[in-house]
């Protein structure tokens, strides 16, 4: 049983006009086995939350804490967070020219395990992970995300999620830009990950569409840099019907 705990998290980003506060006191607890949906309008700070947990250098934590089983995540470097069990599926996965998917995955797996994977079983594992995401195994020889379509990039992210199998996954708008078939493939992958029973998921999304395929245990409405409302799956249905207007108005009032 593991716990990812975020307490009163304040995060700023540098702008031409000085530091701008994006997260204004986020409180959130995700336990293993739970799926939390974070829903909110554009610009509410959802992605900032995702990147801050992962440790992107662009974001500065001004106060608050993020702990994983009591360990201070904010003290860890980006790679140490991954090795501690965190994973971020990015909204815009980055192209890495000249680095093949196979090489990248093997390097990541080696770093996470502290030893190189056994070649024979590893190739099989990679191929299986790709097939599950309806990816041609030829993808392994292509450069990371280079020339991938939007849908291929997202499938590549979830393929890594299954293969690297972290304790907690933060999925940053993994559903955006996907057609319904690709969305199902991606949702199936996330559901297989959840089905292990002891994995935590923080599912960040703008739309309720993906929640038809991935059923959250908790829904948090994220507005203006903090959680404005919390509830069960029914809250998502209410948001689908009513939108974010009343929360946005309340936050700016």
């Amino acid at each position: 049983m593991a716990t990812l705990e975020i307490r009163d998290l304040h995060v700023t980003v540098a702008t031409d006009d000085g530091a701008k506060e994006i997260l204004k006191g986020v409180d959130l607890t995700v336990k293993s086995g739970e799926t939390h949906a974070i829903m909110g309008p554009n610009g509410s700070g959802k992605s900032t939350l995702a990147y801050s947990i992962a440790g992107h250098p662009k974001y500065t934590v001004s106060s608050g804490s993020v702990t994983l089983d009591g360990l201070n995540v904010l003290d860890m470097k980006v790679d140490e967070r991954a090795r501690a069990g965190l994973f971020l599926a990015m909204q815009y996965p980055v192209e890495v020219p000249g680095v093949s998917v196979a090489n990248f995955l093997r390097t990541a797996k080696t770093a996470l395990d502290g030893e190189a994977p056994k070649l024979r079983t590893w190739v099989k594992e990679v191929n299986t992970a790709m097939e599950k995401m309806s990816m041609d195994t030829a993808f392994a020889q292509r450069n990371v995300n280079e020339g991938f379509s939007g849908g291929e990039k997202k499938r590549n992210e979830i393929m890594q999620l299954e293969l690297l199998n972290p304790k907690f996954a933060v999925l940053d708008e993994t559903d955006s830009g996907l057609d319904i078939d690709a969305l199902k493939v991606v949702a199936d992958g996330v559901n297989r990950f959840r089905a292990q029973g002891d994995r935590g998921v923080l599912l960040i999304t703008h739309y309720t569409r993906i929640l038809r395929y991935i059923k959250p245990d908790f829904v948090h409405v994220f507005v203006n840099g903090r959680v404005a409302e919390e509830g069960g799956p029914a809250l998502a249905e209410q948001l689908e019907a009513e939108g974010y207007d009343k929360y946005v108005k309340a936050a700016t009032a």
Partner: protein
Amino acid sequence: MTDTLPAQAVQDAVETVASHLHPVGSFDLADHPVPTGREEIWRFTPLKRLRGVHQDAPLDGDLVSVKVQAADGVTVATVGADNPLKGTSGYVPYERVSTRAWHAADKSLTVTVPQDTEVADSTIVTVTGTGTETATAGHAVIVAEPNSKATVVLQFEGSATFVDNVEVVVGDGAQLTVVSVQDWADDAVHHTHHHTQVGRDARFRHVAVSFGGDLVRMNTTVEYAGPGGEVELLGLYFADAGQHLEHRLFVDHNAPKTKSNVDYKGALQGKGAHSVWIGDVLIRKAAEGIETYESNRNLVLTDGCQADSVPNLEIETGEIVGAGHASTTGRFDDEQLFYLESRGVPEREARRLVVHGFFRDLIRRIGVPELEERLMAAVEAELEATVGLVPAGAAQ
């Protein structure tokens, strides 16, 4: 990233640069006064480190040994300076060092690929320096006769002060790859000029690889002997602390329907590492229907490095298919590093992967498998030197 110029239509890419793009050549040393360092073609070069070869230092040393591994079907010979092949590329030196080298070289190495002969294996010429005390002059001619196909690799190793000219003649319809690997010891100084004449419908690929040496200054020039010739000029360099690696290219589109593609990539690390890339392309009035693109990308790995990158395009006709250039010099891409690190890859390893990737695509285009492996290993060895010692904040 600085100084990024995307490929662009020729109409808005016109830069009129004074005639230094095509300086008038001369074999007469009197036409080439000792440079002061203020001349356009010398302004990036630390003259003091040239050991006087740009002045009047003797060039009569014999401090290199040459080893030849000729592929079946290729003839390699050492002949006198009066051999009829010398000068057949149309080369006329346009600065003092190369002019001096031209006159000082008392021998020529000739590499001949006979007409209609296709050779799969590479012909490898290894030049090993045995001392830097006296400068040594060299001359070579590589001739790919019409409709032949071959690869010639020049390898430079050891310690030397070496000045040379390499002439290349690619016959009509021939396909030739020339690779020049400057893998000198740390104290070598190498000034060289490679000039190529590309025949009608011929294909020429030139690959410059510079890793070693205190100072390497390489001029690579290309002209066409007829329409339809295609040229690819690839380059890869890795400048370490104190190293000066200079590559100067000039493609003279003097014939219609010719093509050129220039792609140079370099990495720099350590205090005083200096790279210079000059990419000159001239499209003459006669050169209708040509296509040219040139690119230089530099990856700066540590503080204290300098990468100079100057693309020049001079266009005398607008009746062309396309012309463009790009030049970028940048630090590590933080987003790439973040992506790799977010999967658990430590920063040092992430940097290694990114540099590896930066060069990999270019190396794979060389088309000489055994060399590709060696070059990846050489990149690896260079990286061992300092990547990872860079503080985390240095990339921002």
